[in-house]
């Protein structure tokens, strides 16, 4: 009996003592890292920076469990498609499966509870916050030189500026309508409480300051680019040119564009480039005109949500299943027969009835390199944009029409061998430059912004290829309330600093 009790006591004791080790309740995930750990090292900081570049083509399907962005969730490139479709230059052949028809029909951006509106808003603020995390934590990195740190910080600043550029152009009245109009909230560091809407002036100042600082840091660090998706001093200047146009500060636009033209080392496509496989020009980041492009592997592609999936109608996906993205027929027909860019769309003369890819005016500009594989590159900034920005800046600003026409000629001679320097002046010249800008940058996220910043009406017509039942909004006068994307209701609900009275009318 005694022996048994001793054994029992021993067994019990061993169970109780041996039960739990001290760190039994400490668990951590295997696929995540805390910010502290990440910003301990230079390599870690790069992980955060490359995460930002992934956002250009991330599949951001949801911002909360109940609101799915579905196949609108295409990261930055989804926004690019929004802004193109909201102009008049990309008629949709049909409703297809319904993706993007809210943007095309000018409905999605005016429903404060809409998931596209909310998802896009969240996208850019998430994007900004990622950069704020880098900007505010980069000093913590110990194993890097100052120029390495500056190199990353300059990129994060450039990207933050890009985020505010988009938000300002979408959610606020255009700059020319006044600096004091309500803009969007500004955050320069990570925080959990909301900020009020800053003024339009403050937001644009923020963009200018960030780009200026980025340019200085790029110059100071003078490090080579590690990947074509990374921002460089050229990208910063290019964005500064874009932003200056949005602010109608044309001289500044010309200066920045000129910097890129002179220093980037990129060169315009040649007419020969267009002759064979024109659709391969914009899906190759090594092409001469590329200033900045992402490389999307099939594995990292958002698949059905991919930008190209909505554009490439050789593929049995949305673009083929009824929602082909066409070019405004008037633009197409306005091109000279010798214009190489005509190859970017299906010539109505050569259209094949019932062939979803070869319908008249269909996109051949933004295509995947290989059918059956989502691997592709996508342009984020090209040199031709800089030539066009320079020409526009000269024409609209205080520059001479001759200089503007020359700048346009410098560009056009790479597109049309028969192009002769324009003898247009004034408004006509501006129109001509804008005409070529619309063609060149079709599908790359400019038209809605261009209309808004230059105060032009949206005019869509059946002749351009718009079907009223699908296009929905055929005309919108400049300056109307509809040009402003609403502030999402969720933001108003959760942000103490923004009330329903702060909503855009």
């Amino acid at each position, binding site marked *: 009996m005694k022996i048994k009790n001793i054994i029992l006591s021993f067994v019990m004791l061993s169970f109780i003592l041996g039960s739990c080790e001290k760190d039994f309740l400490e668990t951590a995930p295997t*696929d995540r890292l805390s910010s502290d750990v990440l910003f301990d090292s230079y390599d870690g900081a790069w992980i*955060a920076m490359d995460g930002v570049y992934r956002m250009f083509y991330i599949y951001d399907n949801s911002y909360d469990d109940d609101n799915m962005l579905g196949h609108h969730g295409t990261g930055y490139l989804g926004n690019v498609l929004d802004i193109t479709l909201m102009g008049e230059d990309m008629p949709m052949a049909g409703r297809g499966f319904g993706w993007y028809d809210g943007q095309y029909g000018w409905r999605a951006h005016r429903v404060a509870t809409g998931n596209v509106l909310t998802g896009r808003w969240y996208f850019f603020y998430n994007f900004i916050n990622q950069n704020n995390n880098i900007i505010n934590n980069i000093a913590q990195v110990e194993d890097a030189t100052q120029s390495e740190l500056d190199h990353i910080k300059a990129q994060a600043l450039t990207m933050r500026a890009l985020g505010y550029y988009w938000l300002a152009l979408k959610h606020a009245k255009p700059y020319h309508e006044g600096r004091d109009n309500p803009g969007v909230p500004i955050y320069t560091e990570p925080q959990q409480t909301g900020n009020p809407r800053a003024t339009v002036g403050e937001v644009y100042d923020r963009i200018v300051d960030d780009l200026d600082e980025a340019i200085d840091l790029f110059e100071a660090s003078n490090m080579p680019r590690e990947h074509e998706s990374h921002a460089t001093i050229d990208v910063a200047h290019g964005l500064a040119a874009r932003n200056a146009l949005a602010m109608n500060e044309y001289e500044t636009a010309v200066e920045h564009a000129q910097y890129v033209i002179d220093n980037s080392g990129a060169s315009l496509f040649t007419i020969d480039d267009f002759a064979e496989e024109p659709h391969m020009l914009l899906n190759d980041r090594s092409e001469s005109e590329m200033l900045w492009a992402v490389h999307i592997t099939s594995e990292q592609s958002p698949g059905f949500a991919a930008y190209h999936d909505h554009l490439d109608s050789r593929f049995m996906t949305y673009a083929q299943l009824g929602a082909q993205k066409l070019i405004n027929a008037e633009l197409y027909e306005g091109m000279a027969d010798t214009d190489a860019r005509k190859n970017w769309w299906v010539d109505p003369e050569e259209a094949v009835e019932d062939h979803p890819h070869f319908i008249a005016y269909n996109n051949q500009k933004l295509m995947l390199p290989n059918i059956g594989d989502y691997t592709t590159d996508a342009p984020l900034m090209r040199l031709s944009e800089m030539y066009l920005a320079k020409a526009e800046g000269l024409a609209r600003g205080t520059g001479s029409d001759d200089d503007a026409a020359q700048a346009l000629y410098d560009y056009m001679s790479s597109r049309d061998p028969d192009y002769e320097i324009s003898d247009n002046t004034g408004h006509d010249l501006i129109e001509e430059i804008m005409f070529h800008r619309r063609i060149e940058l079709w599908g790359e996220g400019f038209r809605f912004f261009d209309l808004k910043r230059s105060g032009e009406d949206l005019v869509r017509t059946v002749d351009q290829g718009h079907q009223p039942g699908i296009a929905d909004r055929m005309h919108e006068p400049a300056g109307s309330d509809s040009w402003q994307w609403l502030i999402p209701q969720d933001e108003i609900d959760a942000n103490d600093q923004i009330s329903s009275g702060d909503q855009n009318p």
Partner: protein
Amino acid sequence: MKRIAILLLMLFVILGTKALGQEITVTGTVTDAEDGETLPGVSVVIQGTTIGTTTNAEGYYELHNVPEDAVLEFSFIGMIKEEVPVEGRSAIDVELVPELVALEEVIVVAYGTTQRESFTGVADQISSDRIERREVSDVSRALEGQAPGIQVTSGGGQPGSGLDIRLRGFGSMSASNEPLFVVDGAPYDGELSDLNPNDIESISVLRDAAAAALYGARGANGVVMITTKTGADRPPEVSFSARMGTIDRALPEYPRLSTDEWMLAKFESVRNSNIANGDVEAANQVTPDRLYSDLGRYNPYNMEYEDLFIIDDQNPWLVEFNPNAELQYDEDFSDYLLRTAMRQEYDFNVSGGTEISDYYVSLGYLNEEGMAITSGYDRISARVNLNTQPVDWFETGLNLSGSASHYNHLLAQGTYITNPFFFQRGMGPIYPVFLKDEDGNDILDEDGNKIYDWGISEGPQGERPIWGNYNLAASLEMDDRSYDQESVSARTFMQFNIMEGLNFRTTLSADYYSRYQTVFQNPDYGDAGPVGGRGTKAHTRNLSVTFNQILNYNRTFADLHNFEFLAGHEAYMMNQNYASAQRIGFPVPGITEIGIATVMDGSTSYAHEYTIESYFSRLSYDYDNRYYLSGSYRSDGSSRFHEDVRWGNFYSIGASWRVTQEDFMQGIDWLDNLRVKFSYGEQGNDQLPTYYAWQSFYDLGFSNHDRAGGLYESHANKNLVWESSQNLNTGLDFRVFDMVTVEADYFIRRSSDLLMGVPLPYSTGVPEIDMNVGAMENTGIELRTVIDILQQTDLRWSFDFNLTHLQNEITDMPEDLEGTIVGTHRWETGRSYYEYYLRQVSHIDEETGQTMFFYDDEDGNKETTPDGDRADRYFVDATPIPDLFGAFTNNLAYGNWDLSFMFTYGIGGKSYDNVYSSLMHEGNLGYHMHKDLADRWRSPGDETDIPKTEFGNPHLFYGSDMYLRDMTYIALRNLTLGYTLPQNISEQIGINNLRLFVAGENLGIWNENEGMDPQHNFSGVTDHTYVPVRNITFGVNLQF
């Protein structure tokens, strides 16, 4: 001391015998009236005294000194009490008749068992016969209707699937509302479908704090305890059962327009969208052509589109469908996608034992086809339960079970085009399964076979405007969506009986499962057509281990004071790994292994780890089986919280009073077992969607090409603590006239410190942070009555009825979350968590046919507008929570026949019928339409509550209270008719017991809205999930 007691006792007995006199000795055997088996352990008592005995192992009793005029009472658990006058006889054999619905006397509770009468908590125990009666593959389905307070969804009809369970309402908003499942004493992390329901001895549903508190940390949503069968000290018993049956749909399809009606509605739809400047006639002219092209140039009729529609001479708005039009083909996808399926199940088990050891061994096989083609489930399961007590101070045992299952799965949920229910419901009626030529005849291939129509202009038609490149009748077979699952579950214990009343028990439990999943999308058509096929292989492994050590002490003092004390320690650990890889580009059909495919399309892996450590104790005391008190205390630490705050303390107290044990009640013999009880306690919940809520992270899964990338994902909240749930219960139970048993409870269940993702302003870049905020309250009344209407030996009938009334209210909500809109619901203090918040339709404008919505103008007046975007949302005074729900069951036995049938019901509650809404929409011109659209507005002056159809005008059918539909229902959930062969016959063929039966599940579901599943889910919002199925089974049970 012992000797003195024995002496005293002997003296007492001797004196006692002397005093009585005129007494005889009665002997006899007690048997079970149903199977003739002898019954050991039956209590035999002389009425009005405490003198009595119990029958021995052979059912034999011997009772001395029985007055000749006495009445003997024979009672046994689960049997109807028998009273037999002695009338001078010395041999009395008695047959006891089983109660039809036995309220179990011994119930399984946390870390042990208890007597029903001494239990201060609320628990229902469902015995094996009630589970075996159900033709279900997943045991969760057997719980429906068995006790009040259990609310379930229908769970749909996917083979092998279970249903969702809520006990006493909804305690959490973002954290889990699922009850804790405990199998043989340890929390169970496996799939319930891996358990063979035939192996289950009983299920205890613990609903209040006193019952569930000892699972403190994880018991906030109630506990469901499953106990598997064991052997006993008896000769081996072999049983075998075979069942075979059919499966088809339990709910009809939503009623939809006929092809003629649909064409007419589409004509109006396109015509109305074409009216320019009010010129209807002009619009009529161009519509046939447009319609023809918009419908993809499909024409099932024997005439051109322009001849199909006849415009009224008087009123250009009115169009009629040409009565001479005839369909040249009429194919319905449901004929090819749905079927009557087969289900078969075979179970075999042996159990028995000796004084020292007992055993239970089983083997089961189940094969269940689904009513949708390619769906199915099969399972092989086995179990060995062994217990042994080699010496009096040591006991040990092992319960080991394993299963291997295969799920042939399909995406039968939501609006995936690969969901056959969605596909067959939504496909416009003019679209054929097989390619048709211009005359509507099948186009045949070279071998004379029909060719599937993929809607991509392979015949004379153009592109189908709906789901081009899809034809599920063909592609479901070409795809593969399946998984194999193997599971092993083990429970082993050692118990040391240290001294009388004191033991130490340690239990080690492990659940392991592995799931290997294949998703293959064919390279030719559909989703993956463009990329040459897509294949995914994914593997999940999950191991959870629970290890506990418990000290148990039991003692009775002075025959009046009964104490039970328990103290223990428990550690729980879960470890899950997941890995998947996906490739595209399959060069040859038929091979689904991804190695053959050319392009990497995604791969990932991760691990989850989750641990809990707990200390717990319980003290129960009762005085003379009259007054009961119990209390428990438990402290849990969870890895989900920061170390400074991770420990939560939980407790419960319970008390009950058996009024009928009191002296003053002794004269009242129509009332038995009157008992009042009360309990209060606090439990916890840490079941957030994430395992690491207190930490802040970069998610590293965002590489940029060949460069590693990560994104800041979540804020840390180191103050996050357990969500707590305070439960109050007060109840009453009694039995009157030895016929009606009543159990009634009232409860308040209050949850506070709710674990929730609190929205941050999206502009801060992180959408939410997990916090403890808000409070919610569920109050309810539960009632169960069992009426033994007839109790004769040859005819018995009992009626078992239960109902629950439940109210749910958000009692506290932080300002940031107040008014949060979640789908069709909105969170607001003072209202239910599931209260609908919707646009409200005022009327259909008689002149324009437009839906008029309410909105508040600037002065706060309610105005109407056809602009759905302008419409305001309102609380429409409706929730999906029924006012009353429950079940009633009749059990009848006549001779060798037995019949039972159970109805479940719900009264009140509204469903937001998304399926209905999709059939009322005009988002896609090719989509099918609901029958209600036959009553649509057609021309000015029409008074109706269904708007016109107009393609491209989403406002007409914007989400609104138009889609709220009554959920009140009654369902014949189960019916079983059995015949047991008389024993004298069955014994001749060497069988102890042979029962033949026919059973049906879901034989009828009645709800005023045809097609709608009134129990689709708790939030009330329906979708295109797998329709619930009806099952009719023939079976046989054999016992050797």
